[in-house]
């Protein structure tokens, strides 16, 4: 099994290298370059040439890629073209904000989703099951920014309980930070909850028709014991996969939520960087985001291998 786990980790690493090359190529295909974006209406050929030369944009692309990859391995993502500050120093605080938001949303949504999913599966067809089913369908069907605006309209504008923009500053205590980001966390919980919940319920019910479940019932076990002890471990693989996918989304896919709540997260940073053609910043963001997905999915796969009795005892 050790070999299997190592193999999976190796593939993850290879994926990451492939992504870094793709990322570099794609950012170089963007129309216009940083010199044009910086100058905007003031772009004259002479000014463009000066800026390009100063930024090393006249070197061949493969050389720039190797330089960049070498630096990135050491945690040095270069300097931002637009501001002249180190990329890492700009990215890290933003990434910290994003991780805080994602962590809180995950801490609430994952147990809630799995718990409600299990409960719905145990009481299949009950009022609770139907209610959960309908509500989760509703939240899955509306766009995320809409959920955000509804929460803002109710809790910030009408009731005035919570701030509409999630502003985090250096001197804030942890409790103040929690208050400031309550609305975006709530929005994210609502958005990711349904997906995980429905997957938990569906995969549990799929396992419930297997012969060994029938065997468990015939032993005289209660439905809740059968679901939790016998069905859940065998339905874990798809649940773990969908949880990993949603955790990935919470870290890299929340740019719309960040815009609605003016939250200084990494997604907003990347959008900013793209519009300014700040390629080192775009590439660093892209690489960090890709790494997040790869690491989470690799971990999920390894967890599935580890928990699957057949793979655990593979010969």
């Amino acid at each position, binding site marked *: 099994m050790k070999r299997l786990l190592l193999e999976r980790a190796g593939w993850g690493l290879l994926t990451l290298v492939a992504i870094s090359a793709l990322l570099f190529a794609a950012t170089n295909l*963007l*129309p*216009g370059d940083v010199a*044009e974006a910086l100058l*905007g*209406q*003031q*772009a*004259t050929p002479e000014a463009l040439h000066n800026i390009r030369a100063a930024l090393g944009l006249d070197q061949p692309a493969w050389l720039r890629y190797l330089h960049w990859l070498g630096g990135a391995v050491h945690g040095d993502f270069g300097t*931002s073209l*637009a*501001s*002249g500050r180190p990329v890492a120093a*700009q990215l890290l*605080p933003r990434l910290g904000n994003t991780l805080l938001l994602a962590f809180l949303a995950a801490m609430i949504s994952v147990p809630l989703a799995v718990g409600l999913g299990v409960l719905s599966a145990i009481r299949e067809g009950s009022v609770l099951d139907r209610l959960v089913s309908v509500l989760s369908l509703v939240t899955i069907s509306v766009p995320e920014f809409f959920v955000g*605006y509804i929460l*803002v309209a109710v809790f*910030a*504008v009408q009731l*005035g309980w919570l*701030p*509409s*923009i999630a*502003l985090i*500053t*250096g001197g804030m205590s942890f409790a103040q930070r929690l208050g400031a980001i309550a609305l975006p966390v709530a929005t994210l919980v609502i958005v990711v909850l349904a997906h995980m919940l429905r997957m938990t319920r569906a995969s549990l019910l799929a396992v419930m028709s297997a012969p060994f479940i029938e065997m468990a019932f015939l032993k005289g076990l209660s439905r809740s014991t059968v679901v939790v002890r016998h069905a859940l471990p065998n339905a874990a693989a798809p649940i773990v996969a969908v949880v990993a996918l949603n955790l990935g989304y919470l870290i890299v896919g929340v740019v719309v939520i960040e*815009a*609605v*709540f*003016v939250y*200084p997260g990494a997604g907003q*940073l990347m959008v*900013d*960087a793209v*519009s*300014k053609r*700040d390629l080192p*910043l775009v590439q660093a963001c892209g690489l960090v985001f890709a790494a997040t997905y790869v690491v989470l999915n690799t971990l999920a796969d390894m967890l599935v291998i580890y928990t699957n009795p057949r793979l655990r005892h593979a010969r």
Partner: protein
Amino acid sequence: MDRRRFVAGVASVAAAGLAGCAVDDETAASGGGTLRLGMSGGAISDSLDPRNFMDWVPINIGYQIMNGLVEIDDHGNAVPELLESWEAQPGAAEWTFNVRRDVVFHNGKTLDVDDVIYSLNLHRGDTRSASRGVLENVASVRKLDDHRLQISLTAGDAELPATLSDYRLLVAPAGFTDWAHPVGTGGYRLESFVPGVRCLTRKTGDYWKPNAGHVEAIEIIVINDPMARINALISGQVDLISRIDGRTADLMKRNKQFRVVRSQTGQYAVLAMNCSSAPFRDNQVRQALKAAIDRPALIKTILNGYGQVGDDQPIPPGNRFYDRSVTPPVYDPDKARFYLKKAGREGLRVTLQVSEAAFSGAVDAAVLYQASAARAGITLEVKREPTDGYWSNVWQKAAFCASYSDGRNTVDAVLSKAYKSTSSTNDTDWRRPDFDRLANQARAELDEQKRRALYGECQRMIREDCGAVIPMFMDHVSAGTQRVKGWQPSVSLDLMGQRIGEKVWLQD
């Protein structure tokens, strides 16, 4: 009187200018509180080096911490700031300026002429400053004594003081380079700055400017999303927001808690025809297209009324050099047909390239133009271009495309930007040496009556010959709570010339 103002009687204007920014509400200015501004126009790439100012947030912060050389008052006149008074020799090419005494930088240094010269030279010669063009006409800056300097120009400029009010010409101590921690003579000291997110400044306590610097602290929160800006104001997280659209402005007006302020700063929309490419080479075609646009409809639909009709020349109606003798152009399909017939181009087909990058609502404006032009027998194809790369790939390359221009502090700055043949951003490619001569003659004319006549002639030439269709001047609209007192519309830049921080106070 006008002549005297330029040549001698500056002190009285100074007094009047400073009085202008004093008490206007029922309540007297009171200190204290934190003014929280929700502003668009900030990005992670922002820097507090005035040479790099590209967007509104750093400019606003700049004016909190530092002072300019010259200020523009509520009526658009140049009034003293760190330059206390000035005098021009006949011909307006030689100027003497007196630097204000007893002004102290945050680091304890007293302001003298060397600081002013250093700060000016940041934007002269071999520099990356975007305001280099503003000082291109300056031949030399010389120190006469500790508080007097002499500026010599290559060509006369009667409005040099107004030219020196450019927002990048802020004063730092001589030799200063640490722009991450700027030092100035302003009423506020930088406390924290996270580019593209937030900035906090706090009162220094001993500001030299009378009737300014009321609030205890100023916080700017960068909110680039318009909807989020409005939410922040309504939920009470900020006191004032910049840039709202006309429709929202009307909704805000219904709520008595809030106040909407519209400023006419001379920002205009332009549809630029390239005068050197067919069919726009023919002035009859240009005039036909100018007659085929329904301006009031554009203002009503695109700006919800927050704008003024443009008459195909860039000087706004509020400017004192605006030629008031002209009647605003009207939508006249028959006149357009007449011009086309004369040019032998009936059934004209042209393509207009537009993008939201040009100005907000540009695509809708083009579609409206298409409809009004159709009634004049012109087929106007609207080609929507991506926002990304619009300024490098379409603007100044397309034969007919949308663009915009910010207001400028002097008529000459407006004309130099896009209408003189020497300009690299002449987006209609309209090049007339006789116009350049006329504009330069007007610039050097110290007699205001004569200058007005010359600038009137410049406006006529642009209106009747240039390829710019200028359908409207667009207001800046901002909104805030009624707590913010002393807040006035401005004529130069948005938010009281971006100096709102030191001018307003908060009612308890």
